[in-house]
């Protein structure tokens, strides 16, 4: 399919192959390492749930015990199922309790013991993966029964009260008013927790904790809404952070439909160790792939700190890298919710046409990906009337350029987390634009060498230059070094710095992880 910008296919091919060259060494690196979260995710897939009296999840307690004895480098599967096979406990949670009471010694078995341990592990983890498969099939059934939205872009709406029991009625109301996708924003700080909180929660800051129970409650509420509305309402949450793999597993088990999952967000915006992030994102994306979940990447974030015109190409580069990493992890084009945003200073001459140029570039570069188009935030102000207008023009770009997922902007962006009425007004805004101007695209034909086409080509050119600069870095992982010296968003993130490094280990010979094995289809 040839896009409206008629980009030169050779240039596009070049951009992609540069991204592949930049990404491949990182994948190698990820293959060679494991993390505490990857191992805990494996235990979660095996069915280990719940937390101790202090709210520390059993997966954390058990893993800590195991690593104390055998380290992280062998993985958690072999020592744990070896213990089970040895009859130290008759199920995982009993084992976890005993282990954290210090009454179990873990070892790395050999010979037939090893084989038995591996087999047992693979069997139990496999059951978990089958559950994920079942939830994916369930989604397909429900989508068939209730149907997909009859329009593009899908309308994506955020709730963020901090209290799951306030979130639910607000989400249902939003769905009633036309939201196709509901995202529950996380409490600040969760991404830096090295564990996943347990249970239903009511005390988040500017967001609600991502927990398995909160996932379950909201998904159930939206299943109700889907039934009432005769339209399958999708649910989104965030994988990003120190627990990407575990949250990905929980999302698969609770049939979430989309997850925020960016290959570099944690590094750049949360100062999480780069290796930790790359290992975690790869595993989490393998789980998403299996669960049929659409990932949402976080390119919008670059534009909240950098200027949206100067930094436009960093968005494109990040999209190309996210695409490469995602496909390597097994995700289909139809699962790539690549992100971009309407963040150009509205006072710039032709700002609206530049937004069109950027949005069309993404559209034409990734014709099969369900692009996620995000609203103005940094140039929103306390002038809510002006904000409502900007959101209308953001919506117009969304429909004019064939975006797939439209994150609805709120007029109170600069003031508060969205109120119920903000959401209602915002949906009315989207409905007007889509209904009144939805087909305007037919009449919209930028001249082949006009302002819009030229701007798009310029951004693509700058993206290629940036990728070349990245590859120019000596050291075997060009991208790591590039991140280290501040190529992205001016933030220097050295490979040996950042949070969560202590949770990373180079795999020992004989490292075994049944989840990876199954997910990689071995």
């Amino acid at each position, binding site marked *: 399919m040839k896009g409206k910008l008629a980009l030169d296919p050779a240039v596009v091919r070049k951009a992609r192959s540069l991204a592949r060259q930049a990404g491949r060494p990182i994948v190698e690196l990820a293959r060679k390492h494991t993390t505490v979260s990857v191992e805990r995710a494996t235990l979660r897939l095996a069915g280990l749930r719940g937390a101790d009296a202090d709210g520390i999840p059993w997966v954390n307690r058990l893993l800590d015990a195991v690593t104390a004895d055998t380290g992280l480098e062998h993985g958690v599967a072999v020592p744990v199922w070896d213990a089970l096979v040895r009859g130290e406990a008759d199920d995982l949670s009993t084992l976890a309790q005993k282990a954290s009471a210090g009454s179990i010694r873990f070892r790395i078995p050999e010979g037939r013991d090893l084989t038995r341990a591996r087999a047992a592990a693979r069997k139990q983890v496999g059951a978990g993966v089958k559950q994920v498969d079942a939830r994916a099939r369930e989604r397909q059934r429900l989508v068939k029964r209730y149907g997909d939205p009859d329009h593009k872009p899908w309308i994506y709406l955020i709730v*963020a*009260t901090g*209290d799951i029991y*306030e979130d639910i*009625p*607000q989400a249902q109301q939003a769905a009633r008013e036309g939201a196709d996708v509901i995202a529950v924003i996380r409490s600040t700080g969760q991404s830096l927790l090295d564990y996943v909180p347990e249970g239903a929660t009511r005390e988040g800051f500017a967001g609600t904790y991502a927990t398995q129970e909160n996932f379950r409650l909201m998904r159930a509420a939206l299943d109700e809404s889907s039934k009432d509305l005769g339209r399958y309402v999708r649910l989104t949450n965030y994988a990003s952070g120190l627990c990407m793999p575990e949250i990905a597993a929980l999302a698969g088990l609770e049939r979430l439909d989309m997850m925020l999952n960016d290959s570099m967000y944690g590094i750049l915006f949360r100062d999480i160790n780069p290796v930790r992030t790359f290992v975690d994102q790869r595993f989490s994306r393998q789980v998403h792939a299996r669960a049929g979940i659409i990932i949402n990447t976080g390119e919008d974030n670059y534009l909240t700190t950098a200027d949206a015109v100067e930094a436009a190409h960093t968005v494109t580069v990040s999209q190309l890298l996210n695409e490469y990493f995602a496909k390597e992890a097994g995700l289909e084009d139809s699962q790539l919710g690549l992100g971009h945003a309407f963040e150009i200073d509205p006072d710039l001459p032709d700002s609206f046409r530049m937004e069109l140029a950027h949005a069309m570039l993404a559209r034409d570069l990734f014709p099969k990906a369900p692009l996620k188009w995000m609203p103005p935030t940094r140039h929103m*102000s*306390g*002038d*809510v009337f002006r904000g409502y207008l900007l959101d209308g023009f953001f919506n117009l770009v969304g429909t004019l350029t064939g975006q797939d997922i439209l994150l609805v902007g709120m007029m*109170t962006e*600069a*003031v*508060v*987390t*969205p*109120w*119920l009425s903000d959401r209602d007004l915002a949906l009315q805004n989207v409905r007007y634009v889509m209904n009144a101007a939805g087909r305007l695209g037919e009449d919209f034909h930028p001249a082949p060498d006009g302002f819009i086409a030229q701007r798009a080509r310029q951004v693509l050119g700058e993206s290629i230059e940036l990728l070349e600069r990245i590859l120019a870095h000596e050291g075997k992982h060009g991208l790591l070094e590039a991140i280290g010296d501040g190529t992205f968003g001016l933030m220097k993130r050295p490979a040996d710095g950042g949070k969560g490094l202590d949770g990373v280990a180079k795999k020992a010979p004989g490292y075994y992880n049944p989840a990876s094995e199954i997910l990689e289809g071995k």
Partner: protein
Amino acid sequence: MVATETAEGRILRPYGDTTGDGMVQVSFTLPMPHSKVAEGAAAQLANKMGIDPALVVHAKAMGPDFTFFVVYGRVNHLVDTSKVKVVERDYPLLSPKDINLAIRKGLRRRLAVVGGCIGTDAHTVGIDAILNIKGFAGEKGLEYYREVKVVNLGAQVSVPELVARARQEKADAVLVSQVVTQRDAHILNTKEMSAAFREAYPADRRPLLIVGGPRFDESASADLGVDRVFGRGTTPADVASFLVHRLVTQRPGRKAS
């Protein structure tokens, strides 16, 4: 969404994103140049309105003498729904068929209605929506009712003209529309009109006086000297049913002349 349920009603607070948070949005202009003092003045006004804390989230100078403000905050007033006074429809809503029947049976003649926009008001769309066949919100107007005779005088009718026409047509009811409200034009004109009718008619023969418009307070009929006030979104059936209710069903002692 629980809120104190009482026998008579409920005690509520405005809702931002959490039950009981009491959040509201306010905007206004102060006639002073933009400055920190001006922002403080805006916060002061918000406080006096009961908003505390008051966040002045936007302040824009409009020339040298004015500043526009947007304020968000928590208002500490409670809403008591048991204390709310509204004019609920106190008569049955009838179908055109029943209305025609009631008039034929009860009045034994057609019911005569004279209407228009008085004063300098030329907004006829509202009165036309009630009177003309075309009607409003899918409902046909009074002209459509076989048993109702409608004389629509249109725009900018003077009060004497209206009274004269009412006499001549032996009007059972007079329907007046007022849309322009600047400087309380609608109130003044309506009072002048009702006074003129009290002048011109003996109390027991005065036609029913009905006034309507988007900015009327429906509970103000006594003060305006009319029998009923209709506001935003009125439909012809509301009016026709009221006419039957007052002129036929609970018909005053006088015999049909």
